[in-house]
């Protein structure tokens, strides 16, 4: 269970091996979208971040190059243990999973034409899509009392899913508007 931390409470104590091990697990079972597993481990199991902090780091990744989950790995490692933490988290995320993935993938590359394989991939990807949608809905919960937040989440969703707008311009337009709206909102407790 996640226990939301009170303001002023000290950050959890996070060791380098814990960073290595946690990001190793996120990477190794990261089927169907690493964001699903990153939230499950970092927010629910370890309680290192709350939903808002998780969503903030994810947002930061929108403005940076590379996979969002790589940005999250660096940021979480760095937040708790500085440069050494960032390196431990990245090493956990990449070293062993890359080696295992490379070996399995090299094998798979010989069998990509098989229909059974394509069917299995289709099933995994249908479930993966559902997991990502549910993770997004969970991240929205800290904002559920804010109509304006739901509006901007809906606009971002529609812009990408229906209007098929390119990501970077979409973000560059919606984010300043969303921040401006938050400035004019009645302040929320906390």
């Amino acid at each position, binding site marked *: 269970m996640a226990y939301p931390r009170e303001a002023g409470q000290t950050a959890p104590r996070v060791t380098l091996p814990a960073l290595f091990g946690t990001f190793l697990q996120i990477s190794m079972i990261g089927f169907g979208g690493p964001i699903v597993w990153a939230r499950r481990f970092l927010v629910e199991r370890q309680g290192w971040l709350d939903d808002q902090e998780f969503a903030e780091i994810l947002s930061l990744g929108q403005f*940076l190059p590379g*996979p969002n989950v*790589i940005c999250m790995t660096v940021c979480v490692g760095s937040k708790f243990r500085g440069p050494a933490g960032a390196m431990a988290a990245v090493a956990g995320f990449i070293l062993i999973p890359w080696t*295992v993935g490379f070996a399995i*993938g090299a094998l798979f590359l010989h069998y990509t034409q098989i229909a059974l394989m394509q069917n299995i991939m289709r099933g995994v990807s249908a479930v993966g*899509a559902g997991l990502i949608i*549910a993770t*997004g809905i969970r991240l929205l919960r800290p904002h559920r009392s804010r109509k304006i937040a739901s509006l*901007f989440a809906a606009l971002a969703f529609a812009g990408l899913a229906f209007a098929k707008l390119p990501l970077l311009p979409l973000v560059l337009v919606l984010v300043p508007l969303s*921040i401006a709206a938050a400035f004019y909102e009645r302040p929320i407790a906390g």
Partner: protein
Amino acid sequence: MNTPGASGTLIGHLIVLSMISFGGIPAMLPDLRDYVVAGHGWITDQDFANCFAVVQAIPGPNMILMMSFIGWKIGGLPIAIASAFATFVPPCAISFVVFRWWERFCEARWQGPVRRGLTPVTIGLVIAGGYVMARASDVGWSSVAVTAAAAALLLMTRVNPLWMLGAGAALGGLGLL
């Protein structure tokens, strides 16, 4: 294609691409395809498509693995490893520097609205990503039902998602989707 020139050129190109890959690695795929397939003819279109399909079905850092497979086809294992580094080191370095700056900014008093305004947009994009994936794998009502069931189970129960992915693989393998 095992010339050192080709390998060096590929690594240089990957470094540039990874530094400008805003929107994640998938955003750099069209450019990379033009470069390695159409531009230099190092690998075929089919090779490229297979690399993409395979990394979707295996665990691990899949876009980094995809770059490694392309490097592997062009220059063997050393280039596979160099391609992995070219893909993740520049974004890691940039993330580290920006996060340092962001943490200092977070201590400022006026950051509340910025943080509250930033996240809803990202959350909408995450949900859209799931929706786009669902459409891509959608061949009928049964796969829509599977997607909806997975979302509902994750929201309402504590079932481990690995079981759901396993069930999806089984349903797909049996030809039910």
